[in-house]
């Protein structure tokens, strides 16, 4: 009962937050010099009055408050608009890129989280021993390297050097499988995914790892761990109990990590020619393609906010001490 009221309140807050985000974002795009006709300037293909005609047909010369209200009205009815650049509905443009990003980043985030939690728990458990000190230091190295450098190094060694993997792209055009291994379904895609996933995992590993380790360090100081040992429980069981209690902060961090994964990986995407949300966001801003840029950023905001809410609710089921209301 209390939980439902909590969720209701949070959803209301979400709506207000999203409205503020949407307004701010809409305003910011209009502040950037230029507009969707900017990409056609400088090619000289459109004389100034044709540009004006185009701008008019796109409603860009309407008074600003009118454009803003139209945008809000469309958004509320689920109409994300039509891309100025591609001349087709925004969803047609957005969704394929979204799937490409989910595919790449989904796999990478799951791997990074699982490996991070397992290793982080291990390091936290082994507090004070040499393996923990060395391990913690080692883990910080990839985090301090620029992600594109990690990617370039992997490309250099495995793609250019050993030629085990392709240099980029989502798939091989006109792919003709030759060996039996190549004939396995998904082989081509997996081959193309390997290096970008590896790059992302190496880079994103350290965050869940260090959070888990820190959380673990706090948990093993708690009384119930000492009590469990005193009761004679097997060390493995005690560790399991500690892990389950320590995982909370990692879950909270997941919401942030997902939002980074979604829109922030343009560097990996450009390096590996992976057409995803990051490139879409950057390109749509450069092209002043307002509908696509706004939809992409809006999507990122919605996912982040809703994920946060979901995880906060999940907490109730993970940790019985947590209740709202």
């Amino acid at each position, binding site marked *: 009962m209390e939980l439902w009221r909590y969720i209701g309140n949070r959803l209301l807050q979400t709506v207000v937050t999203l409205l503020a985000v949407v*307004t701010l974002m809409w*305003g910011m795009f*209009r*502040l*950037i*010099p*230029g*507009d969707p*006709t*900017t*990409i*056609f*300037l*400088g*090619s*000289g*293909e*459109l*004389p*100034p*009055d*044709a*540009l*004006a*005609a185009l*701008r008019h*047909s796109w409603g*860009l*010369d309407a*008074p*600003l*408050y009118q454009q*803003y209200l139209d945008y809000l009205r469309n958004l509320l009815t689920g109409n994300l608009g*039509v891309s100025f*650049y591609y*001349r*087709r509905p925004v969803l047609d*443009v957005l969704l394929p*890129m979204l799937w*490409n990003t989910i595919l790449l980043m989904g796999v990478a985030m799951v791997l990074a989280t699982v490996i991070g939690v397992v290793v982080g728990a291990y390091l936290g458990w082994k507090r004070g021993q040499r393996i923990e000190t060395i391990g913690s230091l080692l883990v910080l190295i990839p985090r301090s390297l620029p992600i594109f450098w990690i990617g370039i190094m992997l*490309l250099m060694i495995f*793609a*250019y050097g050993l*030629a085990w993997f*392709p*240099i*980029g*792209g*989502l*798939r091989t*055009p*006109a792919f003709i499988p030759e060996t039996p291994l190549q004939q396995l379904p998904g082989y081509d895609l997996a081959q193309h995914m390997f290096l970008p996933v590896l790059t992302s995992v190496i880079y994103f590993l350290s965050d869940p790892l260090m959070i888990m380790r820190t959380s673990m360090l706090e948990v093993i100081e708690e009384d119930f761990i000492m009590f469990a040992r005193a009761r004679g429980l097997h060390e493995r069981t005690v560790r399991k109990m500690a892990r389950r209690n320590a995982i909370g902060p990692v879950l909270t961090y997941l919401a942030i990590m997902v939002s980074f994964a979604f829109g922030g990986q343009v560097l990996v995407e*450009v*390096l590996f*020619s992976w*057409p995803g949300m990051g*490139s879409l966001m950057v390109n749509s801003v*450069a*092209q*002043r393609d307002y509908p696509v840029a706004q939809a992409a950023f809006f999507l990122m905001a919605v996912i982040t906010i809703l994920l946060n809410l979901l995880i906060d609710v999940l907490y109730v089921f993970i940790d019985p001490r947590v209740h709202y209301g």
Partner: protein
Amino acid sequence: MSERTGLPPLDPADVPSESRRNILRMMGALGLGSVVAPGVLAGLDASTHAARAAVQPGAPVEPLQFWIPNWPDMIEIARQLGESWKKLGISVQVKQGTLDTWTAEIIGQHQMPHLAAMSWGGAPDRIDPDYFLTEFYNSSRLAKGGMNYGDYDDTKFDAIDNKQREEMDDKKRQQLVFEAQAMAAAANPSLVLFSRNYIQAYNNKRFDGIVPVTGSGIAMPYIPWTYYKMTAKTSRKLVKTTSIYDIHTLNPFATPEVYNSSLLRWIYPTFVIRNEQWDLTPWAAESFKVIDPTTVDVVIRDGMKFHDGKPVTVEDAKFTFDFIDKWKFPSFARVTGTVGSTEILPPRTLRFHLKQPNAPFLANVLGFTFIAPKHIWENVASASNLKTPADYPNDDAVGSGPFKLGEWKRGEYLFLKTNAEWWMAPKIDGVYWLVVPNLENQMGMMERGDADLLGWYIDRKQGDMLAKSPDLTVVSTPSHGLHEIRMHMTMAPLDDPNLRLALQQATDRQMLLDLVFGGAGVVAYNSPIMPINKFWSNPNIPNPAFSIDAARKTLEKAGYGWNANGDLLHPKG
């Protein structure tokens, strides 16, 4: 394009800057910290205004503000020029930005500081001299959105420029074009530097018959003779070309952007095309003839079929022009501006009645428009409830050209299949245009054999690296594009022609070309028409030879002086 003559000054749509202020008012109302933003904007505006402040006699010349796109070549050019001009006592402040911001501010808003640098590509439309002369220097382009952002305004130039555009006789037109160039050169509106070569590579073990075309290299889609003529040396007849761009639409009426429209012309062939020597040759047309200055006859080639099997007729050709006239597509402004009406002369001739004589018509209209299938396009707008057929996705893209649409995976590749029915069918089976935004990856794919043609352009060092591979042949092709630095002729101190001349004399073009592009290019004349464009380029207006002494003498004669620090001072009286 740009066939209009003597247009009145266009009414600028001042929307963006006004909208900026409106947004700030709104943000203030929402209580979202509107204090900072207006301050920032006011600061930006102020710095532009400061440059327009009154000139004080005898005072040091203000630093020249230089807006460049943030490319390595531009950054180096700006740095080198800063050092050269320091010897004249002039200091330079460089502002860098992304291409879209540069375009939005300089071309979109004409927020031009003293100097703005740009490199213009060798697109096929720009072979005709009308493009650069009119876009850069005609007063009709002084309005925002036009490319005369340096404020070159001379009615005498306009008169000659407008006259050359209407002269249908090439020899007479050449004289006018030479005159226009000489007139502009005397005013020194721009520091025209050089044209850089397009360096590209191909896999010589797999393919043969590569054709370099000036301005298009060996692999770009603009004048694609390589693709029409190349032959496979192995059993694989599919070609893989790398590109940094993807197309954004399959609708040939929607796109004004040169890369996209060029690729779509593989599917929708133009009436005429430029051959490897740049001569106009019939393509979808069988022949063409200028009957009188406002009448052109085009005979449609016999036996052509659309990719869905239906025959291509002169009715489809007439339909296309009526269609363009009906919907007034912005990207076909050049057509609606020149073509008054069309008339069918059976069996296969389309007669064009032009609104006024228009010399670029053959190259830039007949070489740009195509024959659209009437049976597909006539109902597109009403059938799909669209405001304009330019919004039609056209996912099935039925044309009649040497290539058909194979597959378009957005962001990944565009696959164009050979059309064996075309009268000059390509000898390959098709071309994959792979989207690889990172140029180094393109090079890697060439070295590994994942791609057969490098469809963008690399620099000299990168070319030398690829040349080490025995499978690859590197080809350097000249271009009619240019690197130029426009001077703001109505902004002090550049409103003084002597100062502009001095800057010309203090610019070492060969050094810049050697330093930035390894010498792979051609130094320009004092004209946006490059020397490589032999017929139209006026060879009698070379840029002044590089000499700091000559530049200083020019300034001295004009009354400038120097203070103890070596700073240049404005003339006293």
